[in-house]
């Protein structure tokens, strides 16, 4: 058995799940992952998607050439693999995709975001796949900032109403072109799948502890009519953007979770701030974007302007 902490939850799995935060032992895990015979369909289906079904407390996902996954009550994930699918191929879907659905099933707030730490607070970068979340976190990591999470950012409100981020793992996940452009070749670990040019990359420093949210940036490309820069949307638009940047927005809608996201959105906007970061996607513009960010952190009080260098690490 393998034990991990993922997005604030303890996990016991019969399969090694690369990239996650390992734990020595877990007596009573929040989530159990094991091989089972996954049914072809659910009874009493209430909501269906193109390749998934949901009933009251069960969720069935099919990835045809990979396997089938059954999530029950937010506590267990059963999987069965398609023919010729090895441990690695099934594990990456369990650790990322399927766990993200489980968080939605548990009614957790989970954003599609990477995050780094600035002065002990998490700065999140939200966006759909390909928006540049991991590359942004990696570029900041190369400048000394601590990695907090990559791809999924589970958020809870503590007793004082402060939003807290729970890390999803301890590695960056990057495509070859980003690894080359950021000169991270010597930190490159194993491929996520043998047939893909996407790799686990050792971050300079990673935090595995929960961390309060300092700021949330929605990543967008500087395509017309948008121009490069940082702007602050109004409260309503900010909350809407938060829903649109949920890990799977369609689940927020179809599971009736919008209200919870609006609530957390309001809390983040109040204590931290939700911003739009519009910038060119090309690597050659990265230095300029990071300079804008660092200036912005001083402006919003995340860093004292004179101590910029100390904020790293």
């Amino acid at each position: 058995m393998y034990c991990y902490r993922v997005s604030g939850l303890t996990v016991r799995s019969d399969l090694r799940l690369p990239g996650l935060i390992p734990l020595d032992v877990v007596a009573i895990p929040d989530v159990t992952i094991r091989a089972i015979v996954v049914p072809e369909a659910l009874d009493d289906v209430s909501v269906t998607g193109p390749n998934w079904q949901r009933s009251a407390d069960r969720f069935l996902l099919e990835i045809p050439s990979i396997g089938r996954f059954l999530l029950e009550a937010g506590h267990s994930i059963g999987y069965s693999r398609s023919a010729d699918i090895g441990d690695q191929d099934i594990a990456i879907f369990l650790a990322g995709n399927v766990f993200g659905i489980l968080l939605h099933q548990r009614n957790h707030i989970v954003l599609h975001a990477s995050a780094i730490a600035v002065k002990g607070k998490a700065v999140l970068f939200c966006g759909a796949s390909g928006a540049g979340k991991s590359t942004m976190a990696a570029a900041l990591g190369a400048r000394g900032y601590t990695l907090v999470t990559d791809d999924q950012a589970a958020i809870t409100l503590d007793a004082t109403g402060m939003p807290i981020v729970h890390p999803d793992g301890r590695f960056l996940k990057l495509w070859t072109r980003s690894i080359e452009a950021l000169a991270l070749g010597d930190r490159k670990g194993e491929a996520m799948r043998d047939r893909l040019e996407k790799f686990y990359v050792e971050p300079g420093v990673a935090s595995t502890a929960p961390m309060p949210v300092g700021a949330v940036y929605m990543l967008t490309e500087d395509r017309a009519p948008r121009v490069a820069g940082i702007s602050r949307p109004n409260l309503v638009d900010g909350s809407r953007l938060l829903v649109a940047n949920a890990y799977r927005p369609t689940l927020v809608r179809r599971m009736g979770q919008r209200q919870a996201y609006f609530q957390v959105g309001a809390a983040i906007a109040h204590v931290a701030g939700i911003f739009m970061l519009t910038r060119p996607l090309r690597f050659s513009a990265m230095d300029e974007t990071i300079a804008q960010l660092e200036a912005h952190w001083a402006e919003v009080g995340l860093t004292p302007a004179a101590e910029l260098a100390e904020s790293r690490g």
Partner: protein
Amino acid sequence: MRPTVWLTSYPKSGNTWFRALLSNLDPARAEPAAINALDSTDSIASSRGRFDNHMLIESGLLTFDEIDDLRPALYRYLAADSYEGPFDPETLYPVRFVKTHDGYTHTRHGEPIMGGAAAAAGALLFVRDPRDVAASLANYQNFTIDEAIAMMADPSFCFCAHPRVLTNQLRQRLLGWGGYAASWLDQRDVPVHLVRYEEMHAAPLPTLRAALCFAGWSIDDATIERAFAFAAIDELQRQEADTGFGEAPQTEHGKTRFFRRGVAGGWRDELTRAQVKRIEQDHAAMMERLGYAPAIKEDFEHVDQQAG
């Protein structure tokens, strides 16, 4: 449930112009639709964000073929679902138009990637003289005209088939200029209505009216004529100069203009004899099938005058 109609074309064949026209078909509209807010169509069929959101799968962890295996189910689901998601604009259009640059191909298991009859009621196939496409494509791709001609002749050319980087769209097989049109014209799953770019110029009203009629949208002639005025090339160019266009090509060196000339037959003063000849050889059969006649001596008068 609104019927789904594909707006399908090889790139640079009038697809975006048509989308601009559709966005200007609202009888209550007082001024031209903003080119950066064309709300007449859903996001492109190959959008990665929409795939990931609805399939609940990170497509970046799947191979191109594995993604293709899942695309038919996505398109059938979206055609049957009235829900407008965060990647789709809210709309009052009577038809769900979806743009695509995917050739009509099949998965490893023989299923049509576009989902077949259950995913769309029909397809509007836009075609344009390949000699004009070559010049426009060179501008769009930041290619030389010879490189554009080679791309059009390459049946294996794909958009977004880069193994080393995550693109914001899924792989699209273009099949070459002739292969693209043939794949849609020869399939028997979805009814196809052919729209020639040249006819949109020569006979705008009847051409657009026929296309809308095929899609099941009846609209009065005055509104159609006003849409042509609102989406005239000089208006599109004016807006692009003013605000930029989000779909314009982006390169390391900056931005290239999207709305270039917007004319039919521009190749006569943009292509050399050798380039024209090569296109006509590469695509002889499909050019004949679509009614694009080979060049004659008079077509080169402009070039000859310049040379003389």
